[in-house]
């Protein structure tokens, strides 16, 4: 009986999709449009986040070591910094490396050293990167308090506005996704509700001949699922192709703009679109038809 009923429900779904061809066609197009918007909104969010991360990753702390500290003392300070919570990496630029960076030319370097009395005045420098940009100010404070560190520089004037910018960027991304997700939901559900309403008479007749509710609701559920699936498939093709092209174009022509070109991220968005399409289609359809099933 179960397999008979399932077979009946599936067959009814396909027959109905085929016989209501234009309604099916319009529903698939609407779902496709809504899901395409959702897909681009999700990719906008991913890029906003990616851009924010790229900006934040450039924030680092420069800690300058007192000349009184010998090599062992410098190594101790490095170790102490590494042990601080939130530190991602610590690298040392020695006095000599620092001098070489300032004066790459050996002659100029020698002349400079002579001018300053033969002692290299460039300090040992530790470059510290943090896991989170928000933690940089706190870390800088802790490093400054360490013995042997006489100055810390982390771009105080630049950091606060940057954090504000990246936070707003993420919020804007989320708001865009929220708005488009809502629009997608409304578009698909309104469309499928209309689809079901035009077939109210059909539902009434099925009830009259004694069809169980699940036999009436089942085909609508599968129809919604299939419409969502087909709409999502088309949307995935559009979003996938357009975004791949756009990402390649930007990467090639606007090298300073960080773009998510990671395949895995794109596939995640496409998976969300597919799931959203199928779930919205099936659930809205089943819920809409419930209204006509009350005795």
């Amino acid at each position, binding site marked *: *009986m179960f397999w*008979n*009923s399932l077979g*009946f429900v599936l067959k009814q779904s396909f*027959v*109905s999709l085929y*016989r*209501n061809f234009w309604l099916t066609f319009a529903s698939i197009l609407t779902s496709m449009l809504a899901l395409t918007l959702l897909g681009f909104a999700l990719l906008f969010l991913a890029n906003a986040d990616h851009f924010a991360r790229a900006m934040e990753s450039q924030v680092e702390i420069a800690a300058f070591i007192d000349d009184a500290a010998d090599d062992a003392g410098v190594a101790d300070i490095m170790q102490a910094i590494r042990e601080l919570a939130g530190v991602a990496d610590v690298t040392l630029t020695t006095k000599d490396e620092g001098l070489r960076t300032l004066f790459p030319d050996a002659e100029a370097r020698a002349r400079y050293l002579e001018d300053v009395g033969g002692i290299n005045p460039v300090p040992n420098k530790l470059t510290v990167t943090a896991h989170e940009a928000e933690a940089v100010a706190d870390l800088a404070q802790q490093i400054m308090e360490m013995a042997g560190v006489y100055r810390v520089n982390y771009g105080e004037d630049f950091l606060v506005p940057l954090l504000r910018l990246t936070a707003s960027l993420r919020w804007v991304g989320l708001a865009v996704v929220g708005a488009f997700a809502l629009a997608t939901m409304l578009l698909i559900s309104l469309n499928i509700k209309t689809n079901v309403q035009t077939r109210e*008479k*059909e539902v*009434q*007749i*099925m*009830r*009259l*001949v*004694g*069809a*169980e*509710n699940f*036999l009436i609701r089942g085909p609508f559920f599968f129809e919604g699922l299939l419409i969502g699936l087909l709409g999502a498939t088309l949307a995935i093709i559009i979003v996938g192709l357009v975004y791949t092209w756009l990402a390649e174009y930007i990467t090639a022509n606007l090298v300073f703009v960080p773009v998510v070109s990671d395949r895995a991220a794109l596939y995640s968005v496409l998976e969300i679109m597919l799931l959203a399409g199928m779930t919205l289609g099936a659930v809205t359809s089943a819920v809409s038809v419930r209204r006509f099933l009350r*005795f």
Partner: protein
Amino acid sequence: MISLKNVSKIYANGARALHNVDLDIAAGEFVFLVGQSGAGKSTLIKLLYREETATRGLVMVNKFNLMRLRNYQIPAYRRRIGVIFQDFKLLPNKSVFENVSFAQQVIGKPKRERKANTDKMLALVGLSHKARSFPGELSGGEQQRVCIARAMVNNPLLLVADEPTGNLDETTAWEIMRLLYELNRLGTTVVMATHAMYIVNKMQKRVVRVERGRIAGEQPEVRR
């Protein structure tokens, strides 16, 4: 077969459709419900196929107490009765064959049996040649014959008809009445609401007159 005791029906908007109705119909009877529009005939019919529930009283149909019928029991009840309407109520996207077969499909009859029964019923109503047509391609009389085939395909003991000839010309109406007469002769109880007095007078079956929600009078069947 049917027993209504002290039945009243008041709709949600306060309209009183039936008032203290008592009516008994025996198995195998053919009963016409007559009366003006708004008299309560259709409400009475709706109570019988449990589209509406009485506000008060007792409605028994073939051992089913319709006042106590739970929502989940309604589909099972409806499969035991046949219903036909003035506006046919056929599924527009299903062929004639599928419309008739559908009523059996919902009760899980096997395919072979469904086909045999549908073929038999379509032959009975004279529409075997239209099995593949869709309702929109049929005349009013043909659509009503499909409805009868659908209503009768599960061999119900009771056939309820709400103005089944209302949309048909006189000749076609008589074709439908001939079919209903035949089904009744074979043992099906028929309850039919109608305005068509030319049919009622000619058929000389039991007549129940409904006026302002009450049973205003009865006329027994004329035995020939």
